[in-house]
């Protein structure tokens, strides 16, 4: 028998006893559905995280801040009471003075370190709206970073024009109809001069309103690194000058920095920075937790799925043994007509594999229907701020591998019945009286 005939015949045989086959496939489906859907969610989450990681340039990118800042943040989020110790080095107000920068840059594996001063802007607005909006503005110092853009381009540092990119949630408040229509439009930034504002109560007199061009709209992210409203170097430096004008140079202290390191030496570099009172944030720090969380969920669901598949495998064995029993005479006849034992074995194996195949395919189809439905629903509700976040992503390679594994399990389950069929003596099956 040709392989194609073998498969077609096996499929035909399967659906001779529709109820039994349906129930067996249903059992496989429960397992495949669980595994496929949880994998799709995991892929979706990881895809999203990957996009976020990519948005800040991937490996080796760091953002540096004084340890004290992070410790304060940590104290806010964790209720752990820590014991006071004389030995503990308390570092306060670490800043990137020239000496520190030199020292830190000299650490093995540090490729670059670009400190920048912090700018606090009062508001941003456009001539399309009467309202002013608060914003945290930071710099995007590096053109090599790829930001996940919804429309337009990220800011360029290759120009003396003032460029700014906004996040999606600002599009509507700033009076734009869509992200696309915001691209190329003008945006006003009100930046206060620290010195002047200390001496007056009329804020307007100490502010400067700078006009910049919106280069593009970035997707809303879940991470602080690389996200947010960002200015190009030209605009940022101009804003820094406006803010610190009149103050002594020592006030214009930089205590944030971006840079690149050799990812292999990350641990050593992290330690060296800690000793100087700085904390390094890499992409992995931010996404690691999220990834771990979803990986654990995936493992739990895969275990559920595996247990379901184990039960389904027993179902396959049972179904096929019944089938072999029922078709004793048919097997005998086929053998009499010259079908080899191997082919008999293969034909029953084929049935087992097809059970696995249909169970997986139905699992994939129903997961897709539910997954894409949930995606659409999520974007109308709790994910409306994250249009680039697909809750479930059906990766064809994953689906193929899962289907392959389920078919393999089904094959293994089918070997015992298939072997019994292949070893059956045709004479015994053809005897009557």
């Amino acid at each position, binding site marked *: 028998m040709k392989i194609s005939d073998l498969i077609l015949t096996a499929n035909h045989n399967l659906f001779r006893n529709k109820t039994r086959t349906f129930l067996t496939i249903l059992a496989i489906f429960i397992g495949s559905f669980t595994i496929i859907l949880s994998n799709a969610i995991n892929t979706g989450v990881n895809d999203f995280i990957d996009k976020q990681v990519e948005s800040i340039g991937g490996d080796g990118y760091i953002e540096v801040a004084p340890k004290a800042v992070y410790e304060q943040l940590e104290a806010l989020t964790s209720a752990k009471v820590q014991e006071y110790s004389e030995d503990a080095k308390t570092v306060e107000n670490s800043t990137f003075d020239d000496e520190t920068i030199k020292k830190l840059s000299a650490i093995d594996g540090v490729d670059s370190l670009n400190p920048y001063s912090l700018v606090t802007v009062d508001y941003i607005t456009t001539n399309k709206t009467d309202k002013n909006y608060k914003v945290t503005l930071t710099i995007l110092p590096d053109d090599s970073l790829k930001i996940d853009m919804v429309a337009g381009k990220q800011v360029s540092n290759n120009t003396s024009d003032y460029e700014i990119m906004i996040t999606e949630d600002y599009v509507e408040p700033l009076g734009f109809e869509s992200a696309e229509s915001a691209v190329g439009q003008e945006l006003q930034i009100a930046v206060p001069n620290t010195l002047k504002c200390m001496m007056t109560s009329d804020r307007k007199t100490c502010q400067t309103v700078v006009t910049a061009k919106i280069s593009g709209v970035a997707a809303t992210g879940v991470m602080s690194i690389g996200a947010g409203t960002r200015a190009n170097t030209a605009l940022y430096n101009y804003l820094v000058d406006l803010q610190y004008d009149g103050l002594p140079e020592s006030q214009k202290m930089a205590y944030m920095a971006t840079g690149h390191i050799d990812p292999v030496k990350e641990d050593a570099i992290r330690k060296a920075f800690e000793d100087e009172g700085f904390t390094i944030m890499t992409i992995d720090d931010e996404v690691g937790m999220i990834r771990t969380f979803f990986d654990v969920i995936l493992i739990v669901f895969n275990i559920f799925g595996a247990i379901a598949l184990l039960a389904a495998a027993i179902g396959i064995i049972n179904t096929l043994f019944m089938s072999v029993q029922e078709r004793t005479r*048919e097997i005998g006849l086929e053998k*009499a007509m010259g079908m080899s034992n191997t082919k008999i074995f293969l034909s029953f194996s084929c049935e087992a594999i097809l059970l696995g195949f249909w169970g997986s395919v139905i699992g994939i189809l129903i997961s897709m229907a539910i997954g894409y439905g949930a995606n659409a629903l999520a974007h109308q509700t709790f994910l409306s701020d994250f249009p680039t976040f697909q809750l479930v992503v059906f990766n064809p390679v994953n689906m193929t591998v899962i289907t392959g594994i389920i078919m393999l399990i089904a094959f293994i389950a089918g070997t015992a019945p298939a072997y019994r069929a292949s070893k059956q*003596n045709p004479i015994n099956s053809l005897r*009557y009286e």
Partner: protein
Amino acid sequence: MNTIIEAKNLTKVYGKRSTAFTALKDIDLCIGQGESVAIVGKSGSGKSTLMHLLALLDKPTKGQIFIDGVNSTKLGAHALNRIRNRKFGFVFQQFFMNVNDSVLDNVILPLKIAKVGRFKRKKLALDALKTVDLDEKAKNKAKDLSGGQKQRVCIARAIVNNPEIIFADEPTGNLDSATGDKITDLLFKLNKEKGVTLIIVTHDEDLAKLCSRIVRISDGKIISDQAVSKDQRKESSKRWEKEAARVKKANEGKAN
């Protein structure tokens, strides 16, 4: 006349030691091409056992079987399967059909096993069904056929691969005499027109007398092996034809 099957010293023992039962003892048999051989005997005498050995469905405990001069006991499983698939056709007392499949699919089965292509095997199966006068039932499900029609489908299935030998084990055993006659008619037509060798296991003396040769066995031994004289054959054939005509008439009367 060429010898197509030759059995030497065939012995078949079922079971082992205390339960051992010798179903065939030292059988020697030589069957020529185009012969029609009836194997006759009481129930349990070893007819089916002999047929199964000759058809290479089972291995003898002792002795050899030569097919076209080739010693089959020295052949591997693949070669044996091939001989059965290409040279032999089988008709059993019970139909062994896949009743939920179409008539055509049932007839196609041996060709599927023989890896014949889709179109060719369909054509061959329809030809075989035409031979048994059931070509317009090709698309019907096998379970919708009457007993006689089912056995005709089995004959179509047995001849679809254009075999040299047809083994029939009690082919009319399950049928009433009228439908049985039609089956017999078909088998002998194949024998006459296509020179197919017939080996028919039966306990029906009338059917046996239509054959060119009758081998009688009892308790696993051949007790007689006689050619049926031409006159005898003709006579039983005539008698049989008359009977068939009568039955046909009766059936037509019923139908009208």
